[in-house]
């Protein structure tokens, strides 16, 4: 289970970072969202993974899950959600104000050499 979980976090982080490094705002926002999913899963695992454990401290339970990471994840989800909403609005505003959806606010100028290279 640990392996599958670690792979999930790893793949989400990789995709998140890849998309965040793209040049247009839409992939960047999606990348940030994936990154925040990865973070939430990661935080959740910091209290160790366990199956069939009691949720909170009980006198008779021998194993219980750590409740703190769940509280942390809840906080992180709320904050992440608000931030994503803001990033989406900002990206739309930038599209309207600047006339394109590039993160730098202007499209990179394509010189003749680079287009010539791309042609087979």
């Amino acid at each position, binding site marked *: 289970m640990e392996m599958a979980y670690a792979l999930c976090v790893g793949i989400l982080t990789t995709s998140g970072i890849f998309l965040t490094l793209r040049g247009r705002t839409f992939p*960047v926002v999606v990348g940030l969202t994936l990154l*925040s999913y990865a973070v939430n899963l990661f*935080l959740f695992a910091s209290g160790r993974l366990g199956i069939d454990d009691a949720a909170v401290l009980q006198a008779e339970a021998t194993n219980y899950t750590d409740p703190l990471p769940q509280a*942390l994840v809840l906080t992180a989800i709320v904050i992440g959600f608000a*931030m994503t909403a803001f990033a989406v609005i*900002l990206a739309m505003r930038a599209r309207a*104000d600047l006339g394109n959806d590039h993160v730098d606010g202007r499209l990179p100028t394509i010189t003749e050499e680079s287009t010539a290279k791309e042609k087979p």
Partner: protein
Amino acid sequence: MEHLAILPILIPLLCGVLMLLPPISGQLSRQRSLSLAALGVLVLITLRLLLQAGSDEIEVYVLGDWQPPYGIVLVADRLSTLMLLLSSVLGFASMLYACAGDDRQGAYFHPLFMFQLMGINGAFLTGDIFNLFVFFEVLLIASYALLIHGGGKQKTRASVHYVVLNLVGSSIFLFALGILYGTLGTLNIADLAQKVSQLAPSEQAIASAGALMLLVVFGLKSAILPLQFWLPRTYSAASAPVAALFAILTKVGIYSILRVFTVIFGDDAGALAQIATPWLWPLAILTLIAATIGVLAASSLRQLIAQLVVLSVGTLLVGLAMARSEATGALLYYLVHSTLVCAGLFLLADMISQQRGKAEDRFVAARRMCQPVAIGIAFFIGALAIVGLPPFSGFVGKALLLKSTLLEGEAAWVYPAILFGGLAALIAMSRAGTTLFWHTSREPDSCDRVSRLQLAAVFLLLLTSPLLVIFGGPVSDFTYDTAEQLHGMSRSLHLLLPGGGS
């Protein structure tokens, strides 16, 4: 007055909420008076807290009486109260300037300003690193909105970079917190400091990765070399009072580095002691070099001041890298000076660009300013202070910092980097002054005078510089005692953990 410690968070929060409600939300004049009143009260409260902390008493405010390390704690020691006083004075002056008309550019300026201050104060007061993250987010989301306040292409473009970078930074922050919680099992700063020295060797590598990820995040906030490229554009695009308030945001990063890498990963951290120092040395020198070049290359006054902010961050980093009590004392003196003077200069740049018409604050010949004397005196004080010439506080700060370097090894790097930075700043500021004040093309056709409030705000900030020199003895004594307390904290953790820890 046992609840005094939480008031710097509660007052801005409650005022911000009140301003969104009907009797106040409709009228700008009511919002202004409430803002100024709240910030005035805040200055008095933080001053009282500072005096209280000056008696070497560390106030631990336990919310809801849940004893640490389980509950949420606020810690008001010398360092946090010093930063609180700094932020409230800065907030008051910026608000004074904004009340002259900048708050009319868009809606909700005053509530946003209050929430921003709440985040800053919270970050200084909190005693555990997860709440540090939460308050970082509070101040960031307010700063996103304040940055774009008023609108315009420049602001939107700067905002996109600023927001995306900081969202990535927040993710890294959470990863680091997850790693530290997974290895150490706590997030309370004092408890972390207690446990980090007893860490099993197998977990040390993971914990050090977490610690260095924290350094990356704080480095992004405080604009350390590879992560500083966002700063000049962001600060020069923001409206003047917002840029002035942002002058303390980089210092929030410096404060966090100081707190985390002195108390948790300081001298008493066993195998992880001084984990950041080998990284901070080269970064400090490189930041100074990059900022020196940036200062010389700036083409407008606002950009120049933004680069001077980076230069001051480089100077502060040198003090951090030395990781000794006397260097930290000098650093804190320089931090107070550079925050107030940079903020004053941002406000001044806005007045200059108001009076120069279309040329704004770019270094080109333009019409003469119609109040050259008042603005010129302010510029002269600000320039001498930020460059670090006597008789102003920049000189004292730099001299204290240079005095605390060790002659073998350190001085060979520190002296040239800081002195060349100062020289570049001197050249750039004198060139800027010459162009802005003397290189005039024509007489002003209409005089658009700056208001008394604006001048008062600028002089309030800039006159702290001579005050810091006149009261240099008591102030530097305070900062040295603060450094002493901070560096001794990892040996007196029982003061911060009344419950004895877990």
